[in-house]
């Protein structure tokens, strides 16, 4: 029970609580800004890949290499590439944006390519120009696959942010380095639990978002697949 006492006294301090809340908010910022930026970049790049075919192979190759770079290595090299300070939180944001877009390129391309030719042909026949057709027809149909990728990226971002604590910017990760240096379990356990809860909440929100963005799926499900989607 000594651990629970320790945990109680750790959380009992108002100072610790406000510190943890600050870390949690920073963690959200460091994980979610790159998620949104990464989705936008991946969609933009995939649009390029769709309109200009040679781009496709280049995109996949670059995405593969970026995704291979170990997180800590990327975190420490980014400052000298983009010329920021090492302790600047923008480094973590840029690194995670790179990972998110790299992770999303393949599923987004696959999803866009899975849009049936006859749907694209119908949209063209209805007078949709390529750009409008992309955003109004092709992209919405790619949403289910895209959200599956975004869910993976969000879990991975939320877990990776804490590595940033090793270069001084890590949201809840600061609780791990802090607990390690003081040989003190409570901050570490609180940090792990809050990271898991954050990942779960964001995941549920993404599932909800997917339902909102794909109303036709519910309609066709309630029609018991009488008409193939």
């Amino acid at each position, binding site marked *: 029970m000594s651990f629970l006492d320790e945990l109680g006294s750790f959380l009992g301090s108002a100072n610790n609580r406000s510190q943890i809340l600050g870390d949690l908010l920073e963690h959200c910022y460091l994980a979610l800004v790159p998620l949104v930026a990464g989705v936008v970049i991946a969609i933009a790049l995939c649009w390029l890949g769709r309109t200009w075919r040679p781009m496709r192979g280049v995109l996949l190759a670059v995405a593969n*290499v970026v*995704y*291979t*770079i*170990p*997180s*800590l*290595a*990327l975190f*420490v*090299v980014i*400052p*000298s*590439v983009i*010329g*920021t*300070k*090492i*302790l600047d939180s923008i480094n973590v944001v840029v690194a995670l944006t790179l990972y998110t877009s790299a992770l999303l390129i393949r599923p987004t391309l696959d999803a866009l*390519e*899975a849009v*049936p030719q*006859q749907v694209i042909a119908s949209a063209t026949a209805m007078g949709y120009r390529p750009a409008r057709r992309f955003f109004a027809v092709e992209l919405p149909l790619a949403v289910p696959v895209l959200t599956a990728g975004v869910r993976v990226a969000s*879990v*991975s971002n*939320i*877990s*990776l*942010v*804490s*590595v940033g*604590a*090793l*270069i001084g910017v*890590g949201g*809840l*990760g600061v*609780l*791990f*380095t802090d*607990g*390690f240096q003081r*040989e003190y*379990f409570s901050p*570490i*356990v609180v*940090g*792990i639990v809050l*990271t*898991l809860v954050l*990942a*779960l909440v964001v*995941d549920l929100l993404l599932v909800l978002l997917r339902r909102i963005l794909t109303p036709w799926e519910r309609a066709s499900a309630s029609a018991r697949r009488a008409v193939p989607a």
Partner: protein
Amino acid sequence: MGAGIGFRSKGGARMISEIGDWFSDPANWRGAGGVPVRLIEHCAYVGIALVLAAIIAIPLGLFVGHTGRGATLLVGSGNAIRALPTLGLVTFLFLLIPKSTAAAIIGLVVLAIPPILAGTYAGLQAVDNDVVDAAEGMGMRGMQRLWQVEVPISLPLLLGGIRNAVLQLVATAAVAAYVGLGGLGRFLLDGLAILDYGEVAAGAVLTTALAIVLDVVLALAQRLLTPRGVRIAVKARRPAAKEVAA
């Protein structure tokens, strides 16, 4: 030497010359803290953790994929482990089992299990039901069907899972240097501690190179180990797959 931390860091050209200086200093290649030893250490952590994780994850994935029992639990717990923060897990285990390499290795194993499990399970899921029925119709027993039909067909996805696990392990082993583990992460963290940016960048280059080399080797293995029949089937299925997705 690099006093750049905290100040504005230097441009790319300066960084490259510092990395060059670091690599050309023979002192960085000798002894227990030299590049060869650190590289071997890093590979050893990755190798040991990979083998242990595979011993746990492959049979479990085969069991669940073959019998279909516990699939929801498996997918759910796999996702939960993926959300575990690496650094949190490693520091937690290190305090639990004080001052031991075992703690870091256990952390690595835990993180390598989900990708292998997911790959094994997804591989078996990808086996066409008609193929399983055909094998059964030919009189194959459960185990025969598993080893002679389901495993060979699922091999590409299984190896894909192992590839993901290796990437995860190379990255995490570097992070685990924080709790005192050797390996290439030492250059990154020791360099940061003494504000030697050349060493930090050299560590980043070495870790990234190791990850890319291992990934390429495994991609080749994935291609070589895929049974010829499966390769033909995948090629034949590809144009049709787009139709099905409609």
